[in-house]
């Protein structure tokens, strides 16, 4: 059973057009406070976690069939070069195939990882990162209660304490202006990654 979680402080207004267009047969839930991101230590979208029939994590949070291919996008006409596009499509297919393999073979699937491998791949938050989450939560609460200006400094603090969280960055930008999450600030932040990955861990299927 897929469960899609929207990390969207904009709530229904922000997510409804997308959910209606997807016309999904599975639950599409709206997580204004990014609770699931906090529980599963997710810092970007799309991030997935696999949970077996007993409620055990068999793959911890990981980029879900995506690559950094978008970084090769032509920023004027938004086209992606063919080689990067092929790489992205191959990654997506490999990930979808892995899910199908798990659905068919359960714990015998090589993609359902053993405990040791799950723990090896799993990241758990440190003190600064849980403080980032508390700041984000406070900012979101203020925003939700009509205090958008007051919320900003808490979003800023969350971003400062956990710079690797694209959820914090892009959500905060989007609340200022829906275009900002994919605008010049976004690209400048992506460029500042240098050789670093936007989707670290995407290589490890």
């Amino acid at each position, binding site marked *: 059973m897929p469960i899609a979680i929207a990390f969207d402080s904009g709530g229904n207004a922000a997510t409804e057009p997308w959910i209606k267009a997807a016309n999904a047969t599975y639950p599409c839930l709206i997580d204004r406070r990014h*609770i699931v991101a906090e529980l599963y230590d997710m810092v970007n979208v799309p991030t997935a976690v*696999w949970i077996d029939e007993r*409620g055990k994590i068999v793959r911890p949070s990981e980029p879900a069939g995506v690559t950094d291919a978008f970084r090769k996008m032509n920023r004027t006409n938004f086209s992606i070069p063919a080689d990067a596009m092929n790489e992205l499509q191959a990654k997506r297919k490999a990930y979808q195939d892995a899910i199908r393999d*798990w659905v068919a073979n359960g714990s015998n699937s090589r993609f359902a990882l053993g405990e040791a491998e799950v723990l090896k791949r799993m990241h758990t*938050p440190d003190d600064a990162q849980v403080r980032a*989450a508390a700041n984000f939560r406070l900012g979101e*609460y203020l925003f939700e209660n009509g205090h958008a200006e007051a919320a900003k400094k808490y979003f800023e603090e969350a971003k400062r304490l956990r710079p690797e969280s694209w959820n914090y960055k892009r959500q905060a930008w989007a609340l200022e202006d829906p275009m900002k999450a994919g605008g010049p600030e976004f690209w400048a932040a992506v460029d500042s990654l240098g050789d670093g990955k936007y989707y670290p861990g995407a290589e490890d299927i």
Partner: protein
Amino acid sequence: MAMDIIYGERANPGVEADAAGGGLWLNRADLKHVAGWEYKPQGFCKGEVCVPVPDARKGEFVDAGARYNLAALANLIGQPVVTDAEFNVVCVGEAAAERKRMLTSLDAPDFTLPDLDGKMHSLADYRGKKVFVVSWASW
């Protein structure tokens, strides 16, 4: 003064609290209601778990008026506390050690969230099935 206290996933609006000096002093009933803690001879307890309070520091946690300092307790157990003095909102987050304990148990943490129609769904509703949880966003 009345404060909004976010503790765990729940926000508790309008709780009578004293936030002087970086503290967060609550009465016994609010301490239990907001945070689930009860003060007992052995310390602050939640179910079977008790956090002992060092004798020498008792005054940081309990005052003569039977009020309890939730911020001091949070600091003691590593929970971050963030306060907005303008709108009187305080958020007590989860401790890194607790997040680590939950995640490394490999038991998938439960959550309950609404769909577009406001219907609530919990991860636990899908026990017995494989679940592929995937995040996305409009932004």
